[in-house]
């Protein structure tokens, strides 16, 4: 009881300290800051109008050349060309003032379409929380249903508030202009160090509490969209660590995940940080490319889950002394499959939404690739189990397979052909099954397969860009000229290496962060994050949550918790062979 009180006290103090410290952080530097537009009335004008090829209707005034630049003949020439175009535009605008007014309206509408797309796809991604809750709870045991569902509920506010306080600022505070949403440039402070004579962006520093210069309609749209992505990461470890995690310890984890565990790697890939700049700085393809978050979102969640589940230890009774596995069957395959479908539906927000632009018609290719990979992933897992493993199609593995295909296609979805998407999903479906077996051999207990689905296939998804990107999209991605092209399409190996660097960095940095946060949480939890063994056997619902997942239902607790044996399957092998299921 004493340790419980101490935990709660610490939790309160930490939250308070967090809020106060970061509340003091400056919202935006006062000098030369662009003016935010909270009402959105000034967002989107003639400057946002483009033709179908992406060429701007309005030529913008070229920046004046410095004395240094004036010695460079190439720069002088391009300056003069831009100046000429700008002058021509000004002359034209003078003759046709109505056209400029119309263009302003069209520009606003174009930006509005992008706002709508980003928000609606963000809403779809938010609904994936429901999918996660159902998949995780369905694949766990009935006696822990209230606890597992509650973790899935509470990670949503905990993660969100952490992201609001500082996570968003660390991740996107140095993003620069938000191109598709009116080009507001208030998120312009990236903390950068110099290494090997190159700038290494480490984290953003604008946008704490969404205040000051971040109080802009387009920043809010970006926040909503990115917040639901972060919560996807945050909810992955609740699956890997389910059924054996003190709720208070989980809450402490929830305080860290959105605020500090997630945003830094995200900044390096999406916020203009050093992994995105690998191309510009070191000639590695287009830098670490991750379209919608195979590494930033899924792999991060998978790696946190892996390290946390490993340090937390397996559920009581999961492994026997001889290393054999005592399975703990899913209590509700119906939930698991319904949850999988909800996730697959939400993925139509996750991937196509990542254009942040409804005016980028590549969204059709992205969405179609996404659904194809989910199909081949589910088929591959099903058939792999059916033909080669247990001779049964295995519904829980079908779910894992479909999700694995979706995770894997998340990074490459915009850059590959339909055939590429099918192959990526197919490989993911087989990989996820073998990975589940592998982690069981390593005695890392993952009740729902989260490590295999999100961690392993997140890595595969990123690597697959380096192989399958077909060079039809991504011109100028991360500031590197030309489209994104992988090894199989004549792009050479350099894009692949950029992905390898990103994936390796993820494992090392997120792994290390997880170990540190785990130690802190253990300390604050009074030495252990595990409920007592007797509580775990009884089911954590009543002791931890005070309510049953299924009140009034009679549960077969005995069959829900296997007791570890000296040798596996003692009864089945020592006497008469059990007969087939149809004999009783």
């Amino acid at each position: 009881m004493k340790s419980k009180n101490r935990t709660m006290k610490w939790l309160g103090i930490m939250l308070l300290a967090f809020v106060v410290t970061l509340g003091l952080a400056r919202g935006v530097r006062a000098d030369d800051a662009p003016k935010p537009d909270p009402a959105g009335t000034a967002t989107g004008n003639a400057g946002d109008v483009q033709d179908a090829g992406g060429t701007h209707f309005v030529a913008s005034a070229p920046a004046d050349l410095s004395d240094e630049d004036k010695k460079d003949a190439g720069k002088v020439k391009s300056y003069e060309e831009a100046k000429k175009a700008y002058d021509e535009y000004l002359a034209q605008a003078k003759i046709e003032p109505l056209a400029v007014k119309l263009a302003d309206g069209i520009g606003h509408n174009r930006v509005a379409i992008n706002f709508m797309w980003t928000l609606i796809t963000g809403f779809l991604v938010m609904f994936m929380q429901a999918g996660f809750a159902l998949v995780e709870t369905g694949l766990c045991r009935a006696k822990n249903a209230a606890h597992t569902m509650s973790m899935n509920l509470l990670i949503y506010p905990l993660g969100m508030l952490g992201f609001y306080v500082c996570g968003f600022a660390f991740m996107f505070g140095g993003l620069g202009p938000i191109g598709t949403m009116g080009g507001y440039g208030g998120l312009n402070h990236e903390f950068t160090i110099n290494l090997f004579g190159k700038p290494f962006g480490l984290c953003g520093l604008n946008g704490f509490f969404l205040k000051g210069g971040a109080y802009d309609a387009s920043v809010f749209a970006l926040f909503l969209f990115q917040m639901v992505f972060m919560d996807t990461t945050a909810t992955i470890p609740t699956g890997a660590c389910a059924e054996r995690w003190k709720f208070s310890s989980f809450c402490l984890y929830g305080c860290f995940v959105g605020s500090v565990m997630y945003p830094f790697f995200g900044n390096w890939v999406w916020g203009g940080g050093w992994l995105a700049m690998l191309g510009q700085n070191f000639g590695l393809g287009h830098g670490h490319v991750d379209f919608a978050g195979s590494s930033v979102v899924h792999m991060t969640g998978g790696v946190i889950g892996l390290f946390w589940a490993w340090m937390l230890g397996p559920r009581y009774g999961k492994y026997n002394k001889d290393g054999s596995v005592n399975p703990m069957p899913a209590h509700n395959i119906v939930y698991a499959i319904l949850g999988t479908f909800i996730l697959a539906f939400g993925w139509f927000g996750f991937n196509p939404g990542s254009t942040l632009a409804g005016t980028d018609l590549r969204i059709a290719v992205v969405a179609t690739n996404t659904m194809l990979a989910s199909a081949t992933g589910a088929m591959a897992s099903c058939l792999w189990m059916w033909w080669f493993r247990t001779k049964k199609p295995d519904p829980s593995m079908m779910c894992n397979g479909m999700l694995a295909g979706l995770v894997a296609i998340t990074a490459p979805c915009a850059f590959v052909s339909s055939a590429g998407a099918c192959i990526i999903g197919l490989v993911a479906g087989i990989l996820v099954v073998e990975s589940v077996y592998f982690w069981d051999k390593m005695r890392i207990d993952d009740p729902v397969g989260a490590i295999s689905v999100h961690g392993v296939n997140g890595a595969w998804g990123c690597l697959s860009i380096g192989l399958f990107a077909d060079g039809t999209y991504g011109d100028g991605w991360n500031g590197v000229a030309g489209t994104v092209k992988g090894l199989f399409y004549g792009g050479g190996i350099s894009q692949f290496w950029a992905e390898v660097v990103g994936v390796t960095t993820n494992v090392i940095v997120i792994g290390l962060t997880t170990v540190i946060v785990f130690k802190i949480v253990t300390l604050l939890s009074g030495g252990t994050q595990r409920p007592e063994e007797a509580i775990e056997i009884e089911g954590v619902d009543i002791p931890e949550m005070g309510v049953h997942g299924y009140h009034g239902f009679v549960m077969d607790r005995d069959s829900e918790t296997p007791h570890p044996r000296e040798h596996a399957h003692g009864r089945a092998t020592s006497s008469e062979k059990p007969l087939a299921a149809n004999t009783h």
Partner: protein
Amino acid sequence: MKKIEAVIKPFKLEEVKDALAEIGIEGMTVTEVKGFGRQKGKTEIYRGSEYVVDFLPKIKLEVILGDDKVEDAVATIVKSARTGKIGDGKIFVLPVEQAVRIRTNERSEAAV
């Protein structure tokens, strides 16, 4: 007066009930139970790992009846509950001292 306790396979319940009704047995008590005999448990498989289910679901059927009807009833249950495969179940016959119908306070065989 005797009590017949029969442990049978769940899917055989309807057949046994109908067969007993045909020979004029009008009431019975049925319980869902679990257990094992020589059949032992059975092996199931989840995410690639096998596990043993030790106790199998069965139905326990209890009938109280006069001594003269016992042989007939036992034969009927054996005939209708039998599949010939292991796990068909068992029948036990026990003596009963007294029976009371609560509504009328009738005693003995009149009460069953």
